[in-house]
């Protein structure tokens, strides 16, 4: 294709994004270095020199990582199974996987309260079969928060993965088996690396999603705070958009670093991905 044609195709979208997102975002980021008319990095210093903030940041990252990891662990086999089914079943399963996305995050969080609460289904069940004597405290713990987020983001992971898995030549797994790989080993050394592009997209969606999620942690988590809490507090309650932008910039930078690391890891798994 001619270069001119290429650019003609790219330009509308590119211009649109540049004008309506990239420039504004850069100006917002830029504004974090100018406070009251002067160049400053005070916001960053304040944020990053505060051990408490760093701790929250750490916890948030940890939660996001665990969420992403669990989504991968749950999503991968599921997506693989879906990709192996016949076209019709595949359609139905994908549709079912998409269904949770139709329900607002709040409603979903509330339904998890019904499940995880003291009088919730899980406790009723465990009490019923006599496994426990006192209801377990699950709701309002980091675990509940993560369960909620996994439920929120798992469909995105599944869909991203099914997309790439469908296009993997079935002979490859057989080739690896004929060379002596067990099903598991073949899966790990062939299918997993080849899924890397989907894995990356899925992980980015889940990771960024859980990094910035606010409602679900608020509803399902207990007193645990996440970095998004501060972003919201500064933005919405305190109306301190300077600090909010600083936090956001830090979050964006973290996201880019994480994605960079993920890409690096991915390249190790699959240099062609």
């Amino acid at each position, binding site marked *: 294709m001619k270069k001119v044609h290429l650019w003609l195709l790219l330009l509308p979208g590119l211009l649109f994004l540049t004008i309506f*997102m990239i420039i504004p975002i850069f100006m917002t980021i830029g504004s974090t270095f100018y406070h009251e008319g002067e160049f400053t990095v005070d916001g960053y210093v304040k944020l990053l020199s505060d051990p408490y903030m760093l701790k929250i940041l750490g916890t948030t990252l940890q939660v996001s990582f665990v969420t992403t990891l669990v989504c991968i662990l749950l999503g991968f086999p599921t997506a693989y199974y879906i990709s192996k089914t016949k076209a019709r079943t595949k359609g139905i399963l994908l549709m079912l996987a998409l269904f949770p996305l139709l329900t607002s995050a709040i409603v979903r969080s509330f339904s998890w309260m019904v499940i995880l609460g003291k009088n919730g289904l899980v406790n009723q069940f465990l009490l019923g079969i006599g496994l426990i004597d006192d209801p377990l405290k699950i709701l309002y713990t980091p675990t509940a928060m993560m369960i909620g987020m996994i439920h929120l983001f798992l469909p995105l992971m599944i869909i991203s993965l099914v997309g790439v898995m469908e296009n993997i030549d079935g002979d490859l797994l057989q080739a690896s088996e004929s060379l002596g790989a067990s099903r598991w080993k073949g899966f790990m050394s062939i299918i997993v690396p080849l899924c890397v592009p989907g894995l990356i997209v899925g992980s980015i969606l889940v990771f960024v999603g859980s990094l910035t999620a606010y409602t679900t942690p608020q509803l399902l988590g207990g007193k645990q705070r996440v970095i998004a809490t501060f972003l919201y507090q500064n933005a919405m309650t305190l109306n301190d958009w300077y600090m909010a932008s600083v936090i956001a910039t830090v979050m964006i930078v973290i996201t880019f670093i994480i994605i960079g690391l993920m890409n690096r890891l991915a390249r190790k798994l699959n240099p062609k991905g």
Partner: protein
Amino acid sequence: MKDKHRGLALFTTLVFIFLLGPLVIIIGTSFGDSSVLKFPPEGFSLKWYKNIFEVDMFMETFKVTMGVALLGNLIALLLGVPAAYALSRGQFRGKEFLNSIFISPILIPGVVMGFTMLKFLVVQFNLPIYTSLLIGHIVLMLPFIIRVIGSSLSNFDYAVEEAAMSLGASRLKTFFTVVLPNIRSGLIAGVLLAFLESFNNVDISVFMTGPGVSTLPIQMLTYVENYFDPTIAAISVLLMVLTGLLMVMIERLMGLSYFTNK
């Protein structure tokens, strides 16, 4: 093949129970009598469904949300598909960079994007609220369109396009008669994901709503600020039914395997 996948089938079943279980609870409570989420629900009543139609704002915001999601999707397709095509077919320097630019909207925390857009679109450019809302949602949808459609494009053999051209089809004709039908599954997936993303969005919409213009998720959020009765569960159920019907319709119209090629 079948027995070998039995463990996997079981695992998948469990994952689906995890995914869909909460939805069952939502469906259950939406028919319950009590105004608090209870499961199993007590009594049976359709009052929450009735309530949806009694509050005008639900219908009005639903219309706005649908409008934005559909119109936005269309524009995102018009902007995104050519870009996705160029990115998957072209060989040029900086492709990787452009690729990451096109998915960057996913990477920015929603509130920040919403606020930034409010500051620039509404305040600075003084665009009407509805236009700003639309623009915000297009930005939101673009990465999904480009990523998903792009990946199905790159799996589609370019020689097939060349074949069409050699038979006399122009590039545009080739795209519509040969490429599009074959990336159908990617197209539908992309459109669907983008649609859902827009339909459920709160972060950006919250800043882009104004007098007379609001979206359903915002309305639902406003509603739960004040009440928590199963009305929003009922809305969710209606949305699921609607989507289900839509999917069945797509299936009827486009054949059995609309999600997957072959």
